């Protein structure tokens, strides 16, 4: 089982008319895509907007997606194109704004206050801190299994070989580690 196979199963469902299954892909790749787009756009609101545009473009193009390349590779290309176009249009509008700066300054201020509802922003540093703190307090076997998986990107079988225990045990250890981190992460996401 690999990443693209799981994605292909979801894509197949979307292509069969289960539109909601596309959201599972969005939930999976939103952070990675946002990370790619953030290399082009600095403002987190712009990143979110470009992300949304990229996902919608991907959904529209999914009709013709044949699975020749992995879904994320394809999404990545769409994301980069959207970010570049976004940047160009933004620069264009900025140069226009400069011409009428005196008139628009005040208007923009009002416009932003009216239309930009306060979005929930998350700082990756906070998440990293929560994960690190929880990981440090985990029992040694859970910590090792989880680190080998998430940091070293080893498969369950490889971890089982290293730790000399069955794959089922590794699966359980990784889950327990994840569950404990998740318990600490949930309040942070709720309060944001």
């Amino acid at each position, binding site marked *: 089982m690999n990443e693209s196979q799981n994605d292909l199963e979801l894509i197949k469902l979307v292509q069969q008319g289960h539109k909601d299954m596309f959201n599972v892909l969005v939930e999976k790749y*939103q952070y990675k895509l946002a990370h790619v787009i953030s290399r082009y756009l600095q403002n987190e609101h712009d990143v979110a907007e470009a992300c949304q545009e990229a996902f919608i473009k991907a959904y529209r193009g999914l009709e013709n997606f044949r699975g020749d390349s992995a879904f994320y590779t394809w999404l990545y290309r769409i994301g980069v194109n959207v970010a570049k176009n976004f940047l160009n249009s933004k620069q264009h509008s900025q140069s226009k704004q400069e011409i009428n700066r005196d008139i628009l300054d005040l208007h923009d201020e009002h416009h932003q206050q009216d239309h930009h509802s306060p979005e929930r922003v998350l*700082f990756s540093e906070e998440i990293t801190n929560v994960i690190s703190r929880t990981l440090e307090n985990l029992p040694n076997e859970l910590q090792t299994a989880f680190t080998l998986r998430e940091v070293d990107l080893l498969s369950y079988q490889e971890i089982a070989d290293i730790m000399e225990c069955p794959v089922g045990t590794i699966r359980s250890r990784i889950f327990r580690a994840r569950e404990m981190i998740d318990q600490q992460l949930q309040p942070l996401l709720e309060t944001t």
Partner: protein
Amino acid sequence: MTSHISDEKLSAYTDDEATVNGLTLTKEQRQTLMRYHLMKASIQKQIPSKIEIDIAKNVALALSKEQVIKSKVVDLQKNRSFAWKRNVKQVVQFSTQFAVAASVAALCIVNLSPDDKNLVPQVPTFQTQPIFHGTTPVSLQTAPQSEQQYQVISKEEQKMQEEKINRYLYDYAFRERLYQPEPEE
């Protein structure tokens, strides 16, 4: 729809170590999956320093206005296996053509090779003197070919051949006249 997916399986699914039917996922399980992916992206440093966490919610909202894809249902796995079969077929086809061409070429080489010893001069083209018997310059010496080696055609045979050729030419001219379409009136 009831779900029988255990949380442990969901965790394995995050790592692509298990398969899960997406349709059986509950809302809570999807939320959990999303946090697992956030965890993963954060550890692998694939997350921007500042991120709006409502991206998925906003995409879902925008997606609700989109049309359902149903026109082109493509079986991706099948497509891949068909592509694989097509490639194998092409390779087999090419190999067969190549084998036939190679066989024909080999046959031509064998048939045209001068294995008829009567036609090949038996005397080597170059002859060098032995080391200890003087220094006579190297010369191109070919043995005079005997007249028997050449096929001499007699006058009778020549005449017969000419007659045969003439008969062929006559026959050709006759057939041409015979099958010539009549001019339209």
